[in-house]
């Protein structure tokens, strides 16, 4: 650990630790949920034999045709095989926010105002992206 600190700052080492744990957790969940999905242990929302027709549609057409809500609406389908996979994907896509939230107080405690502000704004940007507030369409 001493050697690490010679080349990596405290916040960098802390960030790496959380990133590592979150990444591994996310991957394990992704792998397990996909095996459950593919082997048919959990019934999917969209029947697998229908997929070749749906994956040629645009995202917007797909949502309309399969009656899937936008944003975090997929949570209501998390019990289905295909959307079960989204739990792991969401963890992989959220781990960075957790890392930032963990290093924010380190920057603040060290009086590093610029990086405290940068980290805080980045959290807002990522939360905005993840919120599902941003709605678009073809």
């Amino acid at each position, binding site marked *: 650990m001493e050697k690490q600190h010679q080349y990596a700052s405290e916040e960098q080492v802390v960030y790496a630790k959380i990133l590592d744990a979150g990444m591994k957790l996310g991957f394990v969940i992704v792998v397990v949920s*996909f095996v459950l999905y593919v082997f048919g242990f959990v019934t999917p929302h969209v029947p697998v034999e229908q997929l070749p027709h749906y994956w040629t549609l645009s995202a917007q057409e797909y949502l309309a045709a399969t009656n899937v809500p936008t944003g975090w609406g997929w949570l209501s389908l998390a019990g289905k095989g295909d959307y079960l996979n989204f739990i792991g994907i969401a963890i992989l896509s959220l781990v960075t926010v957790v890392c930032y939230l963990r290093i924010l107080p380190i920057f603040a405690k060290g009086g590093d105002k610029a990086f405290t502000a940068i980290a805080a704004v980045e959290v807002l940007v990522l939360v905005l992206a993840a919120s599902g507030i941003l709605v678009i369409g073809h």
Partner: protein
Amino acid sequence: MLLNDAPRPAKPRPGLFGLISILTFILTAAALMASEPALAQVPSAPEGMVALPAEAGGLPWWGWPLLLLVVTFVLGIVAVLGGVGGGVLFVPIVGGFFPFHLDFVRGAGLLVALAGALAAGPELLRSGMASLRLALPLALIASASAIVGAMMGLALPTNVVNTALGVTILGIVVLMWAAKKSEYPEVPKADPLSSMLRIHGIYREGSTGKDIDWRVHRTPGGLALFVVIGVMAGMFGLGAGWANVPVLNLLMGAPLKVSVATSKFMLSIVDTSAAWVYINQGAVLAMITIPSVIGIMLGSMLGVRLLKVANAALVRKIVIGMLLLAGSRALLKGLGIWA
């Protein structure tokens, strides 16, 4: 000299994680192939869903994900040996030659790049090869821009995105062919902004065992270029190592290894913001995304092992050839010439 944006020291290490992935690869392949006899038991379309005929033409439904698993496995190997990120190969090749809509390919491409960056990030940070202080300001600009790019990409007509993707990929081919790299760029004086943000560091050069001090200059210019990089990353789902590294190395003067490692780590931030836009807009399909992530990661692991024996220059020419073909395909598809 050619551009090299693959952070070789930080590729995922085989181990328990690798074994799980290999097991998953085999299980996935076996399950996909064994699924056909069970199709009669698959429920019909649920209430509220548009029912479509089961016949898809060409391959059976499981054939495409299985082919995707194999192709992404090969892409993972080639990407490491060719010194490029997996995302830049994935989107144009899968988008051009698989039947999936470009929305789903870009969503998967972002998650493929994100997965690779997440896997590599911890070790890059711990070793000091990637710099948090260098990454954070640039990632903030790029991640905000990536949201805009992702929204633009999902809002624009597919043929327009395909055309722009083709032009971009062909531009990357030129960049890969012509761009130089600088192992230790000369930075006579840090610029005021980087000095104020204390963007500097030290890392251990493995080949010589020496500690290398580094600093950067032209930070405002770098920040401006990351606006463009973020938009392109979000719009095309490519990852952005191909653009990050030249800006960090050639413009801002970070050592090549620091540039490569910081670029790879930054993808975990930039692609996160864009990936959420795709997830929230329904542009992520598990059956496309998960085999791609598994295939690329497994291929990358094997690629790292093959590095010692492979002819890197030859592989790099093959990568450029693949990108040339895939970029031309995307461009011609977008223009309606090669549908």
